[in-house]
Structure formats: C-alpha cells, structure tokens
C-alpha cells in the first residue's frame, strides 16, 4: 500500500487508472417487490478512482440499488465486478469479493472497542485456529485505517461511546480494512455537523483515489463539493449521468427535483436539500 500512498491519486470522473482498471458494471438491474419495480433497468459503470454520487428524490431506488449490489434484495440483470458476476451470490460472499457498504444508521458493534470493530472487519478470511487465539498487537492495515479515519486516539474506546460522525468514520475504516475496493456508502453525512461533513468529504477524497466509491446522498452542497461524477435516479430509473456541472444543467434533472414550473428558475442545489429530507 505504501507505494500507492506515495502517488496519492485523486479521484476523477471516469476513473483515474485507465486500462486495467478495476470496475463495477451494472447492467439492466431490476428489483421487483411483488409487482412494484423499485429499480428498473438501471445501468451503471463505475471505475476505480471515481467518486460517484447517487442522488435522486425520495423513493428513487438509490438505497435499493445498493441493496441489490450487496445481495440484500434479490434482483435481475447483471452486476459484474471486474468480470466476476455478483448477482445471485450470498451477502457474505459478495462482501468477500471486495464490495463493502455502510448503512443509513451507523451500525458499528457498540459493545466492542474501535480496535475490536476494525479487527473483526479485517478478519473474514481467518482460519479457525487464528480465531481461537487472542488478538495480539495491531495489524498494520488497521493502524493505517485508524490514521486515515483519525480514530487512532480512540482505538481503545467502546464504539458505542463515539460521536455520531466518528461512528460513520469507523464504519468507513472497517470497509478499508475489510479490503473492499468497491465502497457503497448510504448517506454517510446524514445528521453530521458542518465540520464533520467537511472532514468526511476529505476522507472520501483520500480513499476514493484507489477505490470505487459510491455515495448515496441527499445533501446537495456536499455532493457539489466532493463528487467527481453523479448519477441521478428517479422512480427506479437513471435520469442523468455525468459531472456535477452537466447534471446540474440537465433539464430532466431539474424537472425531477423541482417539477416543471420551477425548472428554469433555480439551479439544482438549494431547493432539493429542503425538499428531500427523508431516506429513499
């Protein structure tokens, strides 16, 4: 990891690797809840080094897309991670294939310390023999994750005692030590203070350079500040895709968010965060 660290690639739209990149390719993804199509025929192509934001009004199916990719809900279509088909695999198998996710409500193991949380996240491939022995020392990958997320000083604290923002960072840290190269984050900054948002954004930029990061978000200011590319979903379908500027200028997106009347008047940004508060 150290040589990659030295280069410190920045996330850019379309990925920063070029040929030979890791990718996640979603084709024709459809999730059908007893006749209600929460997601229909969604195509997404994500390259390593892209910090993609997934936005859209309530009920657009953003979280459902993540749920389908991680195997939580069954779907049809195809989800391929660098050529490996994920659809139909069990949740823990998909996780082992390098797809990690967080949840809208921070779900760390509150009774365990920060260090224990990270150690568990790092250990999916451990042998029974290793599991039956005690933890000794701190793995280098965990130390690195502690540093990246700024939790080094809190390593021995129970995760339940962390502030809300710190819990989300711990979750992101867990994805890092889990060795996930596709990170799906479901509203990571919901409920955070302004400073915490800023820090989370910088954290995403830091880790997004070497991974594929997808962020489901309602906060438009946050999106504009940190996204390298954006996909807009509405009613389970992809409405637009492109850079922040492209998406903001897209009349279809304005229509989705503001309704036709206001379409010309306002640029995407101010109104939506007011309009859309709840989770999809």
């Amino acid at each position, binding site marked *: 990891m150290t040589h990659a660290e030295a280069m410190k690639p920045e996330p850019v739209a379309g990925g920063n690797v070029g040929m030979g990149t890791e990718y996640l390719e979603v084709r024709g993804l459809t999730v059908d809840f007893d006749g209600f199509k929460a997601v229909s025929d969604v195509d997404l192509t994500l390259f390593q080094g892209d910090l993609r934001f997934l936005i859209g009004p309530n009920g657009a199916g953003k979280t459902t897309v993540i749920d389908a990719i991680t195997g*939580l809900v069954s779907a049809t279509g195809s989800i391929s991670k660098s050529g490996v088909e994920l659809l139909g695999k069990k949740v823990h198998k998909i996780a082992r294939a390098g797809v990690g996710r967080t949840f*809208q409500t921070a779900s760390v193991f509150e009774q365990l310390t920060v260090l224990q949380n990270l150690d568990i996240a790092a250990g999916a491939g451990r042998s029974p023999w290793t599991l039956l022995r*005690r933890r000794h020392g701190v793995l280098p990958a965990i130390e690195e994750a502690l540093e990246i997320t700024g939790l080094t000083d809190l390593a021995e604290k129970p995760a339940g005692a962390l502030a809300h923002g710190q819990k989300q960072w711990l979750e992101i840290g867990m994805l890092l030590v889990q060795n996930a190269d596709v990170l799906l984050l*479901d509203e990571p900054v919901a409920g955070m203070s302004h400073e915490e948002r800023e820090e989370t954004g910088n954290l995403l930029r830091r880790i997004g350079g070497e991974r594929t990061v997808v962020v489901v978000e309602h906060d438009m200011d946050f999106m504009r500040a940190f996204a390298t590319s954006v996909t807009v979903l509405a009613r389970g379908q992809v409405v637009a895709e492109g850079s922040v500027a492209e998406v903001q200028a897209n009349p279809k997106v304005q229509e989705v968010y503001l309704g036709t009347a206001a379409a010309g008047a306002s640029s995407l940004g101010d109104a939506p965060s007011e309009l859309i508060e709840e989770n999809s």
Partner: protein
Amino acid sequence: MRTVLGRWQTWAGFGLAAVVLFGVAPVVFSDFRLSLLGKFLCFAIVAVGIGLAWGRGGMLVLGQGVFFGLGGYMMGMHLKIADAQVFGNEVPDFMQIAGVRELPGYWAPFASPAFTLLAIVLVPAAIAAALGFGVFKRRVKGAYFAILSQALAAALAILLVGQTSLGGSNGLNRFRTFFGFTLNDPANRRMLYFIAAGVLLVVVAVVRQLMQSRYGELLVAVRDGEERVRFLGYDPANIKVVAYTVAALFASIAGALFAPIVGFIAPSQVGILPSIAFLIGVAIGGRTTLLGPVLGAIGVAWAQTLFSERFPSEWTYAQGLLFIVVVGFFPAGFAGLGVLLKRRRKARGEPGGAPVKVPDSDPDTEKVGASS
C-alpha cells in the same frame, strides 16, 4: 475488566477455585452435602455453556434439557448394563421386571465404556451442529429459535416417557457401580464430586479462552449486529453453530455426570421445566460474564435446596420473583450490577484504576441498519 487483571491473577483465580472445590468443600461439608454440591456443579457446567450461547451469542437456548438428557441417558444406559453384568444378568433390573429377556439393539453398544464416553461427547455435539446449521442458515433467530429449542425439549421428554426400554417416566435409576467402583462407598461418591469439580474448571477455562479469543469478539458482534457481520464477509450461522455446539456438549457432559452423582436420570430432567431452570441461574448470575452463570447456577440451586427444605411452597414464589426482578431491572444480572456500581464509583471521581469497559447490559437488542 479482565484486561486489568493480569495473567497471574487469572491463574490465582483458578487456583483459589481449585482450593475451594478440592480442599475446603470436602472438609467442611458432609458426604450428603458434598454430593449435593456435586449436583449443583453439574448445573453450573450447563450454565457455562448457556452463558456462552445466550450471553455472548444471543441465542436463547431454552432446550438445554435435550442435551443434558442425552448425556444422562447414555451414561445411565452404560451404568445399567454394567450393573447387570456385575450381577450376571442379561438385562438391567427394570427390564427383567417388565419381562424383557434380551437387551434392545440400541443398548448393545453402550456396554462398552469407551463407546459410551465417546458417544456422550460426539452425539449431542453432532446433533447440535446439524440442528444449528439447519436453523441458523435459515436465519431463524430470537423468539423463534427459543420456541423451537423449547419444543424440542418437550418432544424429547414426551418421547422418553413412552419408551419402556428406557424406563418410561421413571427413567434410569438405582445405579450400583460407576466404571467398576461401587457407588455405595462414600469415597467413590466423593470421587464423582471431584470429577464434576475438575470438569467445571476445565469447562470454565475453555469458555474463558473462547470469550477472550477473536472468536469471542466475533460472537459478540454477531449477537449485536448479525446482519452487519454478514456484510463484513462472514457467515454468522457458522459462528453461532460453534457456540451452540459447545453449549450442547457441556450440557451433555453435565448430564452424564448428573446421572451417577444423583442416582437417576428421568424425563423430568429433560423437559421444559428443567430447561428453563438452567436459564434462571444464568440470568441471575449475569449471562454475559464468565463466572456469573457458574455462581448464579450454584447459588440458585443451593438456595432452592436450603429454602425448599424449610418453606417448600414459598420458595417457588421467591424464585419466580427473583427471576422477574433480575430480568426486569438488572438484565445483566448480579455480575452486571457489580460493573455498574464500579462505574458509578468512578463517575464520582474516586480512583477506580483502569477504565471500565461498557457492560453488556442489553445484548438482546439488535442494532442493524440493514433491516430497513
């Protein structure tokens, strides 16, 4: 808490327990009381397993009587065959009375002591593992798992009552020898107590290792957020099966010791009531701790004997009340109460030593974002 205690303190703890169990108890107690304590130690062995599966793993095992009974009956069958052989009979005494002249086929292998001991370890473990895989892979948990395990206990008890070749509702009793030692001899009965005490120490040591290992941390993680663990790349079913199997194994061993110590094993030790009784001590002592279940099980059983000798009817109410109060107001049991007091003392600014870990006060609530 345990990180504060150094390694030598752990050894000192085990040493102290050994001195009390092997040195003090045999001197202080009469043979009758010692044998009674031996019985309580059997319950404590079951409790240690329940503490692991329920306290740490969040599996409300309401049917440990099944495994206790399996171990007890298998040991009982061997003892009956051995007794019959001593007296030169073809079949155990109760079968003679029933007019059975030939040993039933499934009894035959239990004539071998080695087979019996192996079966006591392997059969319940295999059943628990198979059952665990079937249940946990299908994500059956919480109350559904509890009901299922309890139904199993009820079913086995009913099944046993109907088996005349296993003594029906009387079960197997009047054991005369234990692997060649006559049980009339107080010295041999004392030996049985020592075996139970030794097994308890081993069982506690095993669970201590499990709790402190990475597996133990993982088990707590599964208890508190099973879905989250799944998204980290583990199959929680495998993790739960291990704890469930270990608990079943301990219950079986305890049953196998209970039969010769108490002198009988019957359907009344298998069904719903005894299965719940195993749980009471664990809950009162503190299910998430290592020693809470042990002390709780011994304490409750001891109190039951003590008080039911004097106030037979009142004790049942007192026990029920104690259970309700503890579960309702101190979900972490007496052990959790201790941690709570320590924390409060620390909060008042008194020097409390190293930082106290957050007590596992409410392990039943599962906090998972995935369920939405």
